[in-house]
């Protein structure tokens, strides 16, 4: 178990010195690693250097040994591997039991996971079982002078940043947002140690079964997954009529992106979809987000402000969307958007 909660201010953390090392959980689906896992190794390496400890990964799955070598290539020096058929589909219980088993046995001081659907599903149970703290959705991690992990994350819809510490339980567990960190340089000459472990979990012990997996990234009508999109073109109320949604779709198609909309556009019936980007809808973090005629109320920006590059196109230069935008065009969406599409086509045709 983690450190028990009978802590009083000023008291040293019980057995703190027993917890050593920075660990990264390698997330995978059918053996395919999630990129965020390698991003975690870049910030993990920085933390491990500051703490002067080892950087390790946990690889859990079915036929996932190839991820050990990949862990080394991206900077880990040791991998804890649990490889068994029961871990083929991700399910909360076997995974949290496996992670907990490894943490209990080897006692890392810092454990990092990706702030993804899977990472967020897994972290709560692990922290609860270990009776320790967790900080979700960090965008920055550092170490203070007392070897404490400084976990910085946006709070209140991204209005403020908060730095959170866990002074009295171990390990310190954080999830980190995808694309908050860079993927480290690959070094294929690197190797490391693989620690093989096994868990006594049988399929009969698990109450959850994955019956079917449906790919929603292929753009079937009504099932377009905008959270996986690299580029998003978002329609706001500024497109004025549902006929004009076509130009949003055309730009998205031309850029190989997905279309999205604001809640206002959905409520005005301007769009063919019923889900929207924003605080009460879907949160997205694409590489490029193009907001077309979106005014940018906080309810909307809370769902997209972490995109890498935000482009705002709006007639009203006072629109708050320009406050979060990287690039802006002041102008009529109905003129600017088709102009962008035409120019992209023209450039492509020249090639």
């Amino acid at each position, binding site marked *: 178990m983690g450190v028990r909660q009978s802590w009083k201010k000023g008291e040293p953390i019980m057995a703190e010195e027993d917890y050593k090392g920075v660990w990264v959980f390698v997330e995978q689906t059918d053996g395919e690693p999630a990129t965020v896992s390698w991003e975690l190794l870049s910030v993990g390496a920085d933390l491990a250097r500051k703490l002067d400890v080892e950087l390790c990964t946990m690889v859990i799955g079915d036929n996932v040994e190839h991820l050990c070598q990949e862990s080394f290539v991206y900077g880990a020096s040791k991998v804890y591997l649990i490889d068994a058929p029961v871990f083929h589909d991700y399910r909360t219980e076997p995974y949290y039991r496996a992670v907990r088993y490894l943490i209990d046995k080897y006692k890392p001081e810092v454990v990092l996971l990706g702030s993804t659907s899977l990472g967020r599903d897994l972290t709560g149970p692990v922290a609860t079982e270990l009776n320790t703290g*967790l900080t979700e959705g960090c965008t920055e991690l550092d170490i203070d002078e007392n070897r404490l992990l400084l976990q910085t994350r946006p709070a209140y819809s991204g209005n403020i940043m908060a730095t959170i510490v866990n002074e009295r339980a171990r390990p310190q567990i954080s999830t980190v947002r995808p694309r908050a960190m860079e993927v480290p340089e690959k070094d294929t000459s690197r190797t490391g140690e693989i620690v093989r472990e096994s868990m006594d979990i049988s399929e009969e012990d698990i109450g959850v*079964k994955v019956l079917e997996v449906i790919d*929603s990234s292929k753009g079937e009508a009504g099932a377009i997954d905008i959270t996986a999109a690299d580029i998003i073109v978002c329609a706001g109320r500024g497109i004025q009529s549902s006929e004009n949604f076509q130009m949003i779709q055309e730009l998205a198609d031309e850029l190989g992106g997905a279309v999205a909309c604001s809640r206002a556009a959905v409520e005005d019936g301007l769009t063919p979809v019923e889900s929207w980007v924003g605080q009460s809808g879907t949160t997205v973090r694409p590489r490029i987000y193009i907001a077309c005629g979106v005014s940018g109320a906080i309810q909307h920006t809370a769902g997209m402000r972490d995109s890498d590059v935000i482009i705002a196109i709006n007639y009203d230069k006072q629109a708050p969307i320009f406050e979060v935008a990287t690039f802006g065009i002041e102008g009529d969406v109905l003129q600017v958007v088709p102009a962008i599409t035409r120019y992209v086509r023209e450039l492509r045709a020249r090639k």
Partner: protein
Amino acid sequence: MLIVVCIKEVPDAAYINIDPATGTLIREGVPSIINPFDNHALEESLRLKEKHGFRVAAISMGPTSAGETLRNALAMGVDEVVLLSDPVFSGSDTLATTKVLAEAIKRLAEKEEVAIVICGKQTIDGATAQVGPGIATRLKYSQLTLVDQIQNVDDQAGKVRVRRMLEGRYEIVEATLPALITVVPQINTPREPTVRMQMMAEDAEVTLWDNEVMKLPKESIGVKGSPTRVRKIFSQIMPESEILGDGIYDPEGAAHLLIDTLTEEDILSL
């Protein structure tokens, strides 16, 4: 069988402002609303009630003012509401919060078998998405997060089948009951309470469970039971946006400038 829905009252983000001098939140005068995600959880619990005849209990942890949110849940059609409120609960982080909520669900389950606990996928203030999973772990319930369809509930066989909405894919998952489900907003469109229901709810009783009732060890809840602490709060500095061209008089030119800038800076490759 009982469905328990967990709801939270949160500050309405539309009214949150930052004090530019101190970089801290101005909380005064910010109205409270039900966490928007919890509204979908509430709606889904009512649909299960209508379809399967389950009873629905809504619980909320927070200050006594959160009783209003629970009253609204009554107006929407839940059968019973419990407010978990005590000064010793305040300052709880996710770990301590799930202790209180799980204990309340345990108490409800003593009176009536719980089939499903439903939560919103996250709150808009904390946005950790960790309270639902923490409750599931404490109660040893099946954990089903990010659900956009509850396809079937078979309380005879003790099974629930749901669809989960993940990055680039859906998963159809079957789990044993009792289960804890967190829902995404795509699952439903919440109803509006009728005026008649609202009037009835005004006089309805909100049960209060404080720590006299809950009897949780004080060192395990609130600030004392929370391993995490906020050390610093500061405002996020957004770099100013770069306005490209004159989109009003020369939309073509602005469009060209945008695409040229994106390709030159390696943001976009065509």
